[in-house]
């Protein structure tokens, strides 16, 4: 056997096609006879559509059809499928593929234009006139949460979609008895996803076989197929969904969308393939976002900083519809109390409809929100009691000797929350050392002499990754001897092809670059769920390992027959099975594979099943918990409110590293997503009109290269005992603590002024307001 690939820096097998411009994204696919779609979208936050005039649009040369919901047939008169039904949902508003008569957010699709190309389709869409009767709108979530609020949906009794709770221990009792109780109010805003490739879909229907095929820029081809089948009342077998190369996802591409349904319905009705590619304005208006949360938090603690209980109430702005059930809400409350051993937690959350774009998880889902509350809480405990922020965290961490650690929480399925492995305090120590944490006060004093305001922030986290149930994998030895891995799961840039090639290659001692990997297609037989929640490396990864191990065992068993040797005397070197120490007494994997294909009148060897292949599912009962601590340094210009990030350090633990280079890429990218959330990204609505006012990259700022400090990483590896590779997820571990860490650093820079930061994003304008309040009070 050569060197192991798992754990090594292996260059990505995806890259040659991407760096040469030969990736194949949805918009790169052209089918014969294909038409293109553009949508007429609501310009009102809340209105009744009284009538539409499509005559001018229909008259445009090159326009094939202009359709409203009435034209899509009886099947499309119902609202879309609820992706995640829950008995907790009190009002289940999902949208129609095209609006029926009421529109509930600016951007909601009302009509579709199908034309020879997108230029013509957009020309025509602009010629459709819509007669609206405006309705009062709900845009401020705290107002919308009130009992007498303006309803975001006509005729609704209230705007409360659901109220959910997360509770264990006796928080009320602890708060009543504790020597210190700290009360704070927090405001969070998470902005929009902004993968650089927007959404997009192509639908094709072949009437002879009644086969519907969708190419969609999605994270979840299997789920898109499931919801399409339910909505269209078809068998899943008659639908194929393919995720080609996908240009970033970050969560919002995990759901299913009206445009996918419309494309399918149009392709079936017209008998021609149709394409829709989202433009950036549509991404701002229609791709799900993560919006505002307001939190009231009470924390009981002892004088040494040990937290006894946390009780919180959250108002969550859900936007206009509930496409994703309560997933985002639940991921905002279930992570408590994070990496800390806190005996009592009681969190309730009101999920509130407003007339804003609907919401869904974005990188980290609700976890960065929960981490923000938990980490700001740790800082507030330190501030109130005059303790060091790191000491407070240390006093509360789950200790190394406590793993597996049960928090006291239990999921609705009855499964207890159990942290599998880690050493949270050691991870914090690592980052404190690399960031020279203890030397910072001297540095601050030095900077202050020249009028500079610098601060250091700290944030710790843990994350439930590798969520059940499974992502299946098939591993095959092809007759050529090449290894193939087939996964229904798909990648949006994480490097899935590379890591599964590494895992499979290790069983056969072959070069990962030679492994053929197919992903993201429901025509693949291994069942998948979705590439979300930092779960695929820790679910599909072990499945590939299990399948490859089974194939390896089968190859050894067959080779033993052919070489007339005992299995234990055999090994695999460079894709051939040979007798240990006797390289020339060998049979290649390709020869073994050929023996198990279907050959006329050649029976299989006794006791063997067809094909040198196996399909396997790693089926965990629980998630596996990654963790880490971050330290940031920031400087604030107190005259302009501008924040400059000086340094960012990460120590993290995602179990066994499959490919350190790719893990680093995930963490650094995640941190920068957190920087955007903390400092720049703000999806704003005009309260008077309900209109979104940040709908281009001039008004809505993404982080750019000049604003990013050096980000240095250290890995710690606490293998998970819950899967055969010991791996945990890493895709969101940068974003989850990132926001809290930066806010902590900015607050620390302003410590001499006593500015308290219980909110983000921290725009220069907002920081100046807070700075001026304190300066004028002095």
């Amino acid at each position, binding site marked *: 056997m050569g060197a192991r690939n798992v754990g090594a820096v292996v*260059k*990505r097998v*995806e*890259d*040659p*096609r*991407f*760096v*040469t*411009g*030969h*990736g*194949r*994204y949805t*918009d*790169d696919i052209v089918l014969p006879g294909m038409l293109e779609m553009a949508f007429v979208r609501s310009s009102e936050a809340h209105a009744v559509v009284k009538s539409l005039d499509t005559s001018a649009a229909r008259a445009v040369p090159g326009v094939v059809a202009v359709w409203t919901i009435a034209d899509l047939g009886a099947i499309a008169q119902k609202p879309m499928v609820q992706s995640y039904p829950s008995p907790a949902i009190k009002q289940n508003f999902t949208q129609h593929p095209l609006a029926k008569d009421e529109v509930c957010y600016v951007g909601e699709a009302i009509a579709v234009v199908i034309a020879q*190309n997108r*230029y013509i389709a957009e*020309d025509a869409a602009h010629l459709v006139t819509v007669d609206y009767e405006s309705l009062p709108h709900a845009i401020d979530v705290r107002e919308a949460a009130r009992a007498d609020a303006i309803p975001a949906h006509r005729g609704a009794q209230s705007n409360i979609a659901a109220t959910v709770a997360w509770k264990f221990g006796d928080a009320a009792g602890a708060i009543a008895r504790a020597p210190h109780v700290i009360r704070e109010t927090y405001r969070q805003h998470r902005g929009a996803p*902004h*993968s*650089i*490739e*927007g959404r997009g879909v192509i639908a094709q229907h072949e009437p002879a076989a009644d086969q519907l095929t969708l190419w969609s820029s999605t994270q979840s081809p299997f789920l898109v197929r499931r919801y399409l089948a339910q909505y269209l009342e078809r068998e899943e077998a008659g639908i194929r969904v393919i995720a080609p*190369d*996908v*240009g*970033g996802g*970050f969560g919002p591409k995990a759901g299913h969308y009206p445009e996918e349904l419309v494309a399918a319905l149009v392709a079936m009705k017209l008998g021609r393939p149709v394409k829709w590619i989202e*433009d*950036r304005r549509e991404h701002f208006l229609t791709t799900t976002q993560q919006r505002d949360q307001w939190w009231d938090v009470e924390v009981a603690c002892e004088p040494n900083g040990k937290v006894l209980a946390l009780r919180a109430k959250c108002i969550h702005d859900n936007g206009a519809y509930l496409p994703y059930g309560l997933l985002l809400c639940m991921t905002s409350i279930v992570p408590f109390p994070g990496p800390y051993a806190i005996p009592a937690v009681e969190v309730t959350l009101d999920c509130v409809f407003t007339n804003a774009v609907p919401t869904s998880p974005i990188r980290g889902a609700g976890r960065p929100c929960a981490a923000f509350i938990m980490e700001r809480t740790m800082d507030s405990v330190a501030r109130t009691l005059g303790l060091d922020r790191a000491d407070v965290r240390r006093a509360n961490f789950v200790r190394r000797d406590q793993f597996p650690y049960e928090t006291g929480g239990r999921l609705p399925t009855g499964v207890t929350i159990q942290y599998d492995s880690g050493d949270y305090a050691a991870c914090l120590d690592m980052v404190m050392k690399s960031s020279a944490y203890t030397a910072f006060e001297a540095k601050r004093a030095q900077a202050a002499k020249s009028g500079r305001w610098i601060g250091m922030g700290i944030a710790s986290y843990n994350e439930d990754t590798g969520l059940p149930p499974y992502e299946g994998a098939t591993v095959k030895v092809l007759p050529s001897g090449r290894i193939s891995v087939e996964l229904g799961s798909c990648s*949006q*840039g*994480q*490097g899935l092809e590379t890591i599964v090639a590494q895992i499979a290659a290790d069983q056969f001692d072959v070069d990962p670059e030679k492994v053929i990997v197919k992903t993201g297609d429901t025509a693949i037989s291994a069942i998948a769920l979705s590439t979300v929640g930092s779960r695929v490396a820790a679910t599909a990864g072990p499945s590939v390992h299990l399948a490859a191990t089974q194939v390896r065992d089968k190859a050894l068993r067959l080779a033993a027959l052919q070489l007339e040797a005992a299995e234990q005397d055999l090994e695999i070197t460079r894709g051939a099975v040979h007798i240990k120490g006797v390289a020339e007494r060998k049979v290649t994997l390709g020869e073994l594979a050929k023996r198990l294909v279907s050959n006329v009148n050649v029976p299989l060897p006794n006791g063997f099943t067809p094909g040198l292949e196996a399909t396997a599912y790693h089926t965990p009962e629980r998630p596996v918990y990654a963790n880490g601590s971050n330290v940031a340094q920031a400087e604030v210009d107190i005259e302009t409110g501008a924040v400059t990030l000086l340094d960012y350090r990460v120590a993290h633990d995602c179990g066994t590293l499959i490919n350190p*280079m*790719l893990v*680093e*890429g995930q963490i*650094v*990218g*995640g*941190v*920068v*997503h957190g920087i955007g959330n903390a400092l720049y990204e703000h999806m704003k609505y005009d309260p008077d009109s309900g209109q979104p006012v940040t709908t*281009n*990259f*001039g008004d809505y700022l*993404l*982080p*750019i*290269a*000049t604003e*990013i400090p*050096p*980000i240095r990483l250290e890995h710690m590896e606490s293998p998970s005992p819950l899967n055969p590779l010991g791996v945990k997820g890493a895709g969101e571990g*940068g974003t989850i603590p990132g926001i809290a860490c930066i806010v902590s650093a900015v607050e620390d820079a302003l410590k001499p002024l006593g500015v308290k930061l219980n909110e983000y994003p921290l725009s220069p304008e907002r920081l100046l307001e807070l700075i001026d309040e304190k300066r004028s009070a002095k």
Partner: protein
Amino acid sequence: MSDRRTIEVTVNGVRHTREVETRLTLGDFLRHELGLTGTHIGCEHGVCGACTIHLDGAAARSCILFAVQAHGCEITTVEGLAKSDGTLHAVQQAFRDHHGLQCGFCTPGMQMTITAFLAENSSPSEKEVREAISGNLCRCTGYQGIVAAALDAAQKLRGA
């Protein structure tokens, strides 16, 4: 609406004569008329830089140029960076070596921006590289791998 003109452009060394609508963007022309889908359209308002190409040697955004504006010009797209034998350009190789890409969607525009920049500044500092790519958005990498790739490519190109 269909005001048309005939244009002549040279793309990656190949001369093309096409009649196009005057309102057709250069990006759509490259993608849909010539099938060069390596040039990606990310924002259609000239901010994200995914559609960056070289127009007469200078980096330019093909989503906010009309095809007719490129009449008579030499264009290079990402498909024209590697040698004809498939050897990657130093910038492409460095992107792979330094994990300068994840989803790959911003990558062609990043590479075109960096190759044009390095032609002007062969020994840039890290700060200069960051400024050079500050008009290109990447949502995946956090830019760190891209900056490392650009600096490494600069060194390799100087040595070549």
